[in-house]
């Protein structure tokens, strides 16, 4: 073995079996220190299993992990690995400085204080100003930085970034990537797992594409382009990303179907005039804090607002029947105690799934579930499996199908494709386009 490949992580024949499904199927991977190594793959490809495996949260069914040429199990040496999630797994009730020392308080009986080394690290990472603020009051970017600082302080060797910037602004994520590069330059192993191909291309030296539990290829240098990655990711050659949802701001000749005037919210936006016509998909765009997200939510009736809101001229329609809002995170639209089928029907009521006596119409429910699964391209072995057993992309389809089953005139979606692989993304765009084409209004943020 060459010297270059014996430093860093080597993974050989890593296999993980959950019951009858193979999450990882003989995965081989070499990751060298000093580079940012990217991992891409569709939902359900085994990315998250790989992350959990390197992070020591799962042990492999077979295969080996070596670090610097020595057999290594992260369950023993958990200190060496730091996983930075989209939502930091820290203590929001403690201050930033206290978060730094939590877990390494030492043997003293007093309230723990950060040592000199900790203070230096915090200063280097620009956390000086927020040191004594409760973590929960800091911005997401600061919280992530605290998590990284914690890992640096305990001399972690491996940094796993799992979709770290999906909730960050552009400036914040640039800052984050600068930090990642610094970590890599200091000889640490840095892994970036994300669905954002652009981020992978810009920041990684090499990117491995994982599909069906194996590495399908490692792209580097010239070959590392967004299109190259996309082609590796998508199984069907025909489905190579078409231009994603285009914002259509054209003025509709017909009378606008949905209209707001002088629409104001106390703390997010003022005097918005907006209208959308039949069959239109309208994209609201804006950085975090611009008020675009709140605007979308306000159309769904979830923010207290003043102004005039009307549909085809009428202002007093049955809004709850007329509009549906789909939140950005699946955790806010799916019911984990329900099966896939029950989830698909969760938004329905009388008369769709129950009669006037409120008795459920079991036969119609089953038929409706069958139809929804086919129509909304949900990949599930049975309608009666728990929702959590589906891959992320399919869960997202269920979340959207929940709303589509209501057949709302106005469909409001907040980041409908967040954290979803390209393949599912395309299918979701298809669904939305088809839906708008039936003469409905779709607004996305």
């Amino acid at each position, binding site marked *: 073995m060459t010297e270059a490949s014996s430093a860093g992580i080597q993974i050989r024949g890593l296999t993980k079996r959950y*019951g*009858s499904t193979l999450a990882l199927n003989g995965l081989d991977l070499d990751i060298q220190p000093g580079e940012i190594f990217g991992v891409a793959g569709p939902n359900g490809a085994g990315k998250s299993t790989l992350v959990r495996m390197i992070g020591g949260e799962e042990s492999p069914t077979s295969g080996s992990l070596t670090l610097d040429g020595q057999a290594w199990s992260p369950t023993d040496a958990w200190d060496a690995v730091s996983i930075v999630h989209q939502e930091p797994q820290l203590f929001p009730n403690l201050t930033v400085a206290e978060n730094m020392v939590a877990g390494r308080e030492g043997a003293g009986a007093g309230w723990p204080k950060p040592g000199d080394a900790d203070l230096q690290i915090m200063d280097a990472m620009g956390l000086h100003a927020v040191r004594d603020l409760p973590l929960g009051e800091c911005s997401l970017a600061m919280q992530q930085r605290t998590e990284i600082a914690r890992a640096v302080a305990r001399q972690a060797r491996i940094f796993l970034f799992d979709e770290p910037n999906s909730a960050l602004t552009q400036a914040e994520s640039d800052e984050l990537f600068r930090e990642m590069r610094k970590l890599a330059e200091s000889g640490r192993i840095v892994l970036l797992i994300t669905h954002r191909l652009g981020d992978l291309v810009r920041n990684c030296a090499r990117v491995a594409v994982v599909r069906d539990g194996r590495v399908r290829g490692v792209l580097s240098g010239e070959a590392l382009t967004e299109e190259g990655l996309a082609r590796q990711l998508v199984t069907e050659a025909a489905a190579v990303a078409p231009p994603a949802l285009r914002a259509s701001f054209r003025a509709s000749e017909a009378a606008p179907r949905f209209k707001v005037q002088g629409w104001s919210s106390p703390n997010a936006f003022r005097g918005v005039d907006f209208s959308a016509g039949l069959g239109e998909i309208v994209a609201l765009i804006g950085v975090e804090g611009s008020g675009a997200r709140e605007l979308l939510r306000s159309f*769904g*009736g*979830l923010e207290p607002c003043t102004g005039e809101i009307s549909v085809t001229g009428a202002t007093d329609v049955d809004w*709850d029947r007329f509009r*549906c*809002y789909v*939140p950005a995170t699946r*955790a*806010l*639209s*799916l*019911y*984990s*105690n*329900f099966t896939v089928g*029950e989830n698909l*029907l*969760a*938004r329905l*009521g*009388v008369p769709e*799934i*129950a009669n006037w*006596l*409120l*008795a*459920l119409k*079991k036969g119609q429910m089953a038929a409706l579930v069958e139809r929804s699964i086919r129509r909304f391209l949900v990949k599930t072995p049975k309608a009666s499996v728990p929702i959590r057993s589906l891959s992320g992309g399919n869960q997202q389809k269920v979340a959207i199908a*929940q*709303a589509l089953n209501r057949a709302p005139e106005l469909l409001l979606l907040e980041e409908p494709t967040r954290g979803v692989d390209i393949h599912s993304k395309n299918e979701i765009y298809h669904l939305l386009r088809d839906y708008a084409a039936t003469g409905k209004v779709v607004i996305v943020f």
Partner: protein
Amino acid sequence: MGEIDLSFGAMYGLAANVLAVMWVVHGVPVYVAIPLTLVIAALVGSFNGFLATSWKIPSFIVTLGSYNLLYGLSLWVSNSGTFNPNYPPSGTDLPQGQLDFFIGLTASFGKYELSAEVFWMLGIALVVGFLLHRSLFGFRLMAIGGNTEAARLARLPVRRYKISAFIVCSILAGMAGILDFSFIQTSQPDIGLSQTFPVFAAVIIGGASLNGGKGTIIGTIGGALLLAELQLGLALLSPGPHVQQIFLGAVTIVAVGLDLFLAKLRKSLK
């Protein structure tokens, strides 16, 4: 649905005491007093539900409060007294017809001396089972219990459903209080209070989740039967009252622990 009602034991007691005072002391006809008692139960349920949803006080605290409140009311209306319709206080006279009707509610009959209370239980179980498993009400309650925030964003009537659930709970507790009063024929201000934790134990053993979104009627009846059998068996063996309590505690923990263990086992075998 992510809420808890600790006050049902006290509601059970209040129902028996209110009925006793209205009927036995003040001579309100039992046919009027029973519906009035159930109305009071419904009011108590709306009180709990209103505070828990509109004022957003955690229901654990609201109902811990109303538990004591209702017990206080029981003490007050009954003047800490005991009542038996067979022996009304002097000066009142209960018509025999009303007495027969009331005692007949839970009369024992047939070869095995089966109390009619068993049939009340089965009937109520059927109705509640329908509500829970075959109606939109139950479907949405399960949804609300599984993910309240999602239900709110999906514009399901979360508040109304939660209040309704509290009302159903209080009315059922009230009915239980009335039926047991008919069976025992004696009311005391503190009856029902000691039922609080055994009932929780039965429900949990039956597979319901305190976090909400899980639970069945069959399971609950099974849990209740299991505990009742154990209590009866231990009473017959008469090893002393402490053993019953120790068993109740141990069975609760072991049953839930076993359930979690078996679920894990099933998952790993699949």
